[in-house]
């Protein structure tokens, strides 16, 4: 069976011109005169960078996904904010404000605000996964509500529930990834989620959780493993890509673990700096030389401020890089899932062929027996299975085509995503260094004043 109507394409993969693809003309070029560039670099010999507040407020991070798109063709901004507690006692939950600003015509209004709870996001994801995964679309993974704590040496991997602001941030990123995908943006469930004031409660949250989807993905993988006839991959592209994603999965996980270690050690640095600050203050108190005593107290103050900087930097480490990698690890799982779905589709097609063959054999046998009504039935069944085989082949072609396009889009997006995050991370570092320079320059005269 031929596996694809498209031949293998050269990398990097360009988007097929698909009339449904709203972003066919989107470019990534950021012009040198674009406003955000000017905000970032001034003309002076030592560039001043506008300080970026590093706190996990969603709106700081939603810009990262919007500002680098060409404004004309992709104009949608989403923010998730203002978590507030609704209800009392056992039935209490956190509600988030989801604001969508857009000029796209598929939306009924320019700006709309709705209230959603966390399980609504999971519900949306579950619906999209069940609709699109089996035809080869990479559905963005659902936001996690907890993180497995730093899996490092001595630290036990405790599951830490994320605070509402952090969850808001993850939910926002989830929605942005979802709307970036042309097919999903038009999906009525997505539109309903963003626009309608009332949303039917998503039931059975267990099935909707990340773990539930994982189970569904694993079922596909199991089906693949149980295939008695391994798919004869005549399309090298799929074989190559599958291997690449396997490798990427392993490497991203390693990378993610290293970044989690960075976050952990940065937090430790913050704690140790604060502890040193206190100790230096005590030493200053004990010191009987007045000027030195003063300088030591001031050193303690500087270190305290630096401790705060380390905490902020740890936040940036986490919310920018660690979370990006976490997202991608989950995305890769989704990608591997669609590859498995393709195999499953192929298997179904194979099964249909086998069935057709059997029906044909049965018909042939009946030709020589003299049972006209059974013969008719057999002929009907043959037609039925011929139809199934054709449908199976079409499905397989379609899913293969979709996957090629999706993988191309994924590969293009990841370049953008990583770059945006690195840029923001560099900004956070510059901000930290600016502050450090400020603090130490203020302390220097104090040190020199020791007489």
């Amino acid at each position, binding site marked *: 069976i031929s596996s694809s109507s498209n031949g293998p394409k050269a990398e990097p993969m360009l988007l097929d011109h698909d009339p449904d693809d709203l972003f066919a003309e989107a470019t990534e070029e950021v012009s040198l005169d674009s406003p955000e560039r000017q905000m970032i670099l001034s003309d002076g010999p030592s560039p001043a960078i506008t300080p970026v507040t590093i706190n996990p407020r969603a709106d700081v991070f939603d810009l990262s996904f919007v500002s680098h798109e060409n404004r004309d063709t992709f104009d949608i901004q989403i923010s998730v904010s203002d978590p507030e507690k609704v209800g009392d006692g056992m039935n209490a939950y956190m509600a988030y404000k989801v604001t969508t600003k857009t000029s796209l015509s598929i939306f009924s209004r320019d700006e709309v605000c709705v209230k959603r709870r966390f399980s609504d996001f999971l519900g949306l994801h579950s619906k999209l996964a069940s609709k699109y995964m089996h035809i080869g679309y990479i559905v963005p993974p659902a936001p996690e509500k907890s993180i497995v704590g730093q899996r490092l040496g001595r630290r036990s991997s405790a599951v830490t529930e994320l605070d509402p602001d952090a969850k808001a941030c993850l939910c926002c990123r989830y929605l942005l990834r979802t709307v970036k995908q042309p097919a999903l943006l038009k999906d009525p469930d997505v539109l309903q989620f963003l626009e309608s004031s009332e949303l039917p409660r998503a039931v059975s949250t267990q099935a909707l959780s990340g773990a539930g989807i994982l189970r569904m993905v694993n079922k596909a993988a199991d089906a693949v493993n149980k295939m008695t006839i391994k798919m004869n991959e005549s399309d090298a592209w799929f074989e190559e890509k599958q291997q*690449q994603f396997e490798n*990427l999965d392993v490497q991203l996980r390693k990378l993610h673990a290293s970044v989690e270690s960075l976050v952990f050690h940065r937090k430790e640095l913050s704690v140790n700096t604060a502890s040193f600050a206190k100790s230096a203050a005590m030493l200053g108190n004990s010191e009987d030389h007045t000027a030195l005593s003063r300088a*030591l107290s001031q050193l303690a103050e500087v270190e305290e401020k630096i401790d705060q900087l380390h905490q902020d930097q740890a936040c940036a480490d986490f919310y920018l890089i660690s979370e990006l990698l976490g997202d991608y690890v989950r995305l890769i799982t989704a990608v591997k899932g669609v590859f498995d779905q393709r195999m499953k589709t192929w298997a179904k097609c194979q099964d249909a062929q086998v069935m057709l063959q059997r029906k044909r054999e049965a018909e042939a046998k009946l030709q020589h027996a003299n049972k006209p009504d059974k013969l008719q039935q057999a002929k009907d069944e043959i037609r039925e299975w011929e139809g199934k085989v054709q449908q199976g082949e079409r499905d397989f072609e379609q899913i293969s085509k979709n996957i090629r396009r999706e993988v191309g889009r994924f590969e293009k997006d990841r*370049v953008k995503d990583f770059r945006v995050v690195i*840029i923001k991370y560099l900004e956070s570092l510059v901000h930290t260094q600016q502050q450090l320079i400020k603090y130490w320059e203020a302390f220097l005269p104090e040190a020199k004043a020791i007489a």
Partner: protein
Amino acid sequence: VQFGAFQHSCSNKIYLLLVRSVSVDLNNDASLVIDIPDALCERDKVKFTVHTKTTLSSFQKPEFSVPRQHEEFIWLHDTIVETEEYAGLIIPPAPPKPDFEGPREKMHKLGEGESSMTKEEYAKMKQELEAEYLAVFKKTVQVHEVFLQRFSSHPIFRKDRNFQIFLEYDQDLSVRRKNAKEMFGGFFKNMVKSADEVLISGVKEVDEFFEQEKTFLLDYSSKIKDATAKAEKMTRSHKNVADDYNHISGALNSTAADNNTAFKKHLEKYAEVFEKLRKLEDRVASDQELKLTELLRYYTRDIQAAKDLLYRRARALADNENSNKALDKARLKGKDIAQAEENQKQCLQKFDKLSESGKKELTSFKARRVVAFRKNLIEMTELEIKHAKVRRLKCCVYHYMFTRQCSGSHGKPGNLREF
């Protein structure tokens, strides 16, 4: 001016690091100038080159150098401690043994893993190893050099015969080593242990100055010990962060190696960013250690030396009290009065001498401490500012590069250099 050169031959020996350090304040007097311009590290042993320049006639030559090992420095220290005349002086604390455990472990790993590493990985690890050796070297040379300069800048110590032998004698001093250590090493330790107890619960202090010093030193001693420990933890955390940057860089490179799309070049660039971040973080950590942690470590030891002086004086005070009591008893009994009088006179003399000399020592100790803190805090601050500026600049450059970058093309490197 500080610079280092490093070689690593395949027979697992490390050869020399040329480290010239600049310690200004203790070398003010040109009549006797000591420094350690270089040191050689071979397996466990470190050989310091002790270089002396002098106008004093008590020395045979105006300029000369001798090789000395750490143990010989300890011999000098122990000899001075045992010298009764110096009981009223603060004995410069012995330098700690050079600790190359960290880098040595790393070298072992390097040797073992050589076959399984790529050429780049091996070269990178070797570079890190060199940097670690250099850092340990700087520390140990600095502390051994300061030790000697304490003697050379002290009006009494500089005339000490054993000190001169240490500087001049061009043979190995090991002959004298064992006796001193065996005899006095353990005893000295016991003395130090009970010193605090004697100071705290000792005889009633008659002198306001010493009463205040005692209170101050006991309190300061515990505070500076604590500050040292906290500074060490802080430095270690910096090193851990640098390590993490290293792993991240490596992981990005591995990911890039397996990739054949446009992503590859980006990943390699990001790996470069993290590698630069690592280098800078390492530098911050080692400078902080050298200027702050080492300063605190040194003065923790020096405070102990000052406390030892107080202890010796407290012992002399107790002896004095006892000799007075013995004299009274003798007078009462009418026996051995002359002997008791002589004993009392000697104890009083000793006590007075210790008090007079101790007062001077403790006063100059404070001055010395203030100067050292000032110098190191200024240097540390200036280095922090420098590193932060470099880091800011580098991040700006990368930021500029990445924001300019269109998919597929790169920013022009020439422009960046100007920037």
